[in-house]
């Protein structure tokens, strides 16, 4: 059971960027009809979800944060995790849509230790795969220009990385 936290330009960093939990920020203003109409949805969700933080910031009184995130239209909901903006929802959207977004973000950014480790490992594997693709492109180029020394060192790096990824996937499976 928690409530929507009213935040300001001054404590945005503390409350949102340094938050331990994935956090939703509702950018609103008292003269915005649709904002007033969706805000009760966030009150309900805040009471329901324990491992998610819900905040609201009045853009009229806190122009700095609104400018920083280039807000040009409200209601705007931004989602933050690990100190970064990770997603957004624009406009007065139905409750069901907000719920599925919150759930999706909770899955992407789990708060329990095992879950966090899993997400770190899988993003690591993903990164390695992308790097692997880049490496193979360079290998092709090295082959085309017949540069054996570069080709061989690329080959070595690739096979080492494949081994690392195998080990990482194994770890992920064990978790």
């Amino acid at each position, binding site marked *: 059971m928690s409530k929507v936290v009213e935040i300001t330009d001054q404590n945005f960093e503390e409350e949102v960027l340094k938050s331990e939990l994935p956090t939703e920020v509702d950018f609103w*203003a008292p*003269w*915005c*009809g*649709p*904002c*007033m*109409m*969706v805000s*009760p*949805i966030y009150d309900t969700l805040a009471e329901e979800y324990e491992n998610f933080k819900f905040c609201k910031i009045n*853009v*009229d009184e806190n122009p700095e944060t*609104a400018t920083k995130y*280039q*807000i*040009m*239209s*409200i*209601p*705007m909901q931004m989602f933050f995790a690990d100190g970064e903006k990770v997603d957004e929802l*624009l*406009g*007065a*959207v*139905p*409750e*069901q849509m907000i719920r599925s977004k919150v759930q999706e973000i909770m899955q992407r950014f789990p708060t329990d230790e095992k879950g966090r480790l899993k997400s770190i490992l899988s993003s690591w594997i993903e990164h390695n795969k992308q790097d692997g693709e880049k490496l193979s492109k360079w290998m092709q180029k090295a082959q085309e220009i017949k540069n054996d020394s570069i080709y061989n060192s690329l080959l070595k790096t690739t096979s080492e990385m494949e081994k690392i990824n195998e080990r990482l996937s194994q770890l992920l499976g064990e978790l």
Partner: protein
Amino acid sequence: MEKLVIAGSGPAGLTAAIYSARANLSPLIFEGPGPGGQLTVSHEVENYPGLEQPISGMELMDRFRKQAERFGARFDSGVVENVSKGNDILKVQAGYKIVETRALIIATGAEARRLPIPSEKKFYGKGVSGCATCDGFFFKDKKVAVVGGGNTAVQDAVFLTRFASKVTVVHRREYLRADPVEVQKAKMNSKIEWMIPWVVEEILGKDRVTGAKLKNPESGEMFQLECDGIFVAIGHEPKTEVFKDVVETDEKGFIIVQFGGTRTSTDGVFACGNCCDQEYKQAVVAAGQGCMAAMEVERYLGIKE
């Protein structure tokens, strides 16, 4: 089993709620995606009877809602996604909820039409807006354009002069549909410029709007307008997609109701407000029709029992 479900929570839906709740029908209202309806984006309502001083559309709709609650109307934030009919029972689905009801009032209203160009979608929320009251604030001392020639467009233009340094109204026809009194207010405002008849061909910018490419439909001439914001107010279309299998609609999507009443082509289903009104589109008309719908439901259920 419900006696009455109402889809929509604008002036039509909430008036139907007030009347039917007072008649002890204990209606269940699915508020839909924009609780309070289109009026909630009006910063000032001047012409609703009984309001000596103008109030915001949001406050007016809040009063409607509280009045309905006082008589026992029940509210659900769901959006009706499907309706089916079997014998005398209607099944209404909203999200994971399925409700059986004897009668249904459709009061889902209309929604703002968007510009039919791909760049509008790309820049939505990045300079393109459908709500001047919500977003005008973000354009202090900037140049903006308003697209449209109806009341909303002209009122938006006047409202936006509070923030913007210059407001250009872009309208595709020579003549403005807006009320003469509104046009006069706008014509007297020195911050407003007029691009008539011009159409928006493309919205320009990289990450956010920096201008618009306009075309004169008569001469074929092109013009590049510099602006930071584009407010689209080119009319509305009825939100009736999910009801098309249950009730008859016309070619524009408006629900067809019996002349002078709210009965639709299906027994037990009634419609009121902007989802069936293409003529007046006024809150007071929608409210009046909401009242009619509630009374017709009362009569319909009375005969059935």
